[in-house]
């Protein structure tokens, strides 16, 4: 069984919102009609997005870290939004596990959005139906596209490759290896929804420089060094 999903590396995401704009661009131009935008160039702009990047500050100043956190539908293995749908418009594709909404069946009752703990669903106030991330289903199964382009728009757009896409049920896929080897985790595991999308945690990136490395104790030319050191040197001033 295939379960397509995203793996998002929070250690690499710089919060540039390229995934948000490329997602909006692709999904507002497709067969399903536009994603609503109200007052796009005015005060209080609002609209439907499948993907949003949020920013959190962790810690207390000055010891803080900024975490950019892209959030879209997690394509749960046990999606609570599907059984509550009274019309069957909300469904999970049996062949690749993508959770979708049939916009022609949706009555816009919003019940599925109540049944999603992640807030991944947003109603389109123009079409008056519920919408959500489709993992760019019209791209990833389009055999007319070259294989390297059969990926969600957000994945192709990410400049830092923070977004990986693949089958999390295949133990040897890029995403499964990333989850396994880089501490991939799920959001709100306490609800038992078993999200397919995973996140890779932040990692400590500290650079430790020994004094040895600055003065190059093993450098034979050190004796001939005529520089007067002030103690303020950076690595670039002394390394050659």
């Amino acid at each position, binding site marked *: 069984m295939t379960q397509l999903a995203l793996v998002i590396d929070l250690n690499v995401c710089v919060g540039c919102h390229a995934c948000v704009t490329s997602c909006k661009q692709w999904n507002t131009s497709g067969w399903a009609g536009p994603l609503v935008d109200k007052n796009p160039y005015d005060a209080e702009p609002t*609209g439907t997005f499948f993907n949003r990047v949020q920013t959190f*500050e962790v810690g207390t100043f000055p010891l803080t870290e900024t975490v950019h956190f892209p959030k879209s539908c997690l394509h749960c293995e046990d999606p609570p939004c599907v059984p509550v749908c009274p019309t069957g418009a909300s469904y999970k594709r049996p062949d690749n596990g993508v959770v979708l909404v049939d916009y022609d069946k949706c009555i816009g*009752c919003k019940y599925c959005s109540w049944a999603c*703990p992640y807030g991944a669903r947003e109603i389109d106030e123009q079409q008056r139906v519920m919408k959500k991330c489709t993992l760019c289903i019209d791209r990833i199964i389009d055999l007319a596209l070259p294989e390297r382009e059969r990926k969600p728009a957000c994945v192709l757009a990410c400049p830092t490759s923070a977004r990986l896409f693949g089958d999390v049920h295949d133990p040897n896929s890029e995403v499964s290896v990333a989850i396994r080897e880089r501490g991939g985790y799920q959001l709100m595991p306490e609800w038992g929804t078993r999200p397919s999308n995973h996140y890779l945690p932040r990692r400590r990136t500290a650079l430790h420089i020994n004094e040895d490395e600055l003065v190059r104790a093993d450098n034979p030319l050190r004796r001939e060094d005529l520089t007067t050191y002030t103690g303020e040197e950076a690595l670039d001033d002394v390394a050659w």
Partner: protein
Amino acid sequence: MHPALSVIFLTTLIGAGQGLFLALYTGQVYALANLLPAQGAGFYVGGSLIALALLVGGLIASFFHLGRPERAWRAATRWRTSWLSREVLVLPLVMALVAAYGLAHYLGWTAPLFSLAGTLPITPTLIIGLFGTLAVFALFLCTAMIYAAVPFLEEWHSPLTVANFTLFGIASGFLLAAGYSAWLGNQLVAFFGTWGVIATLLALVTRLGALARNRSLARGKGRKSTVQSAIGVRHSAVVQKAQGATGGSFNTREFFHGRSPGTLKVLRNLFLLLVFVLPVALVALGYVLESATLPLAAFAVQYLGLLIERWYFFAEATHPQNLYYSGVS
């Protein structure tokens, strides 16, 4: 959650309609056992019409909740998994049975079909009423389970939700029946009024239970999700700096009521007064004065209170998705 007027009217109107039907049928069964004076067909026909009008009113209100009301028929298809779908099926069934009950009385189908144990005459109205009663309770269950079955809304995810919806429906329906009887001037006022007060007091117990439960939830006890589990960062200090939208989104509109805690407190005290205290006092006063209008006023006051109660019910529920939008709350 953002309280939607359509759902507030849907749940309160059909609740009162269901309760009124239960009151009429209870009155008929008591009359059968000679515990109450028997009423003419007009009483049941008029009462059924009022109940039907309330149910239809609720149904009309529900359409305003839908983005695509013209596709509402599709909502009947997923009754195996969705309580909303089950409600969509049971509501018309209740309406049909209430209409049939009134029609049977109108057509005078009161001749016994057969007798049970030689003494209890079983009439067509009695049989239709029995099925109507079962359907009414099924509808209470379906309506309440729409809310109680969603585990993420912990304020709703409790048997108390089912108890409250059922008892509030019965209370308002019996008070309406008392008002209706007082208006007509028959002797059933005290019967309906007493049971209306009993249901109101039972609802007070379950509603206060729900309020106490929600208060402990609001203090963070038993809340499953935290901002730490929401984004998967294990640190005690996590503050949201941006929520990914300038002018708000569906997420900031649908899941927040946008009122101050002070307003909520005022509305809670107001509904406790209007739903429980005033109607009981008005029924008692109406009984002492033998008033023709006070029981009706008791229903009207309680219904107004129930509108506020239902608003508060929605507003008090906190969705875990709000953890991703902590800048709003």
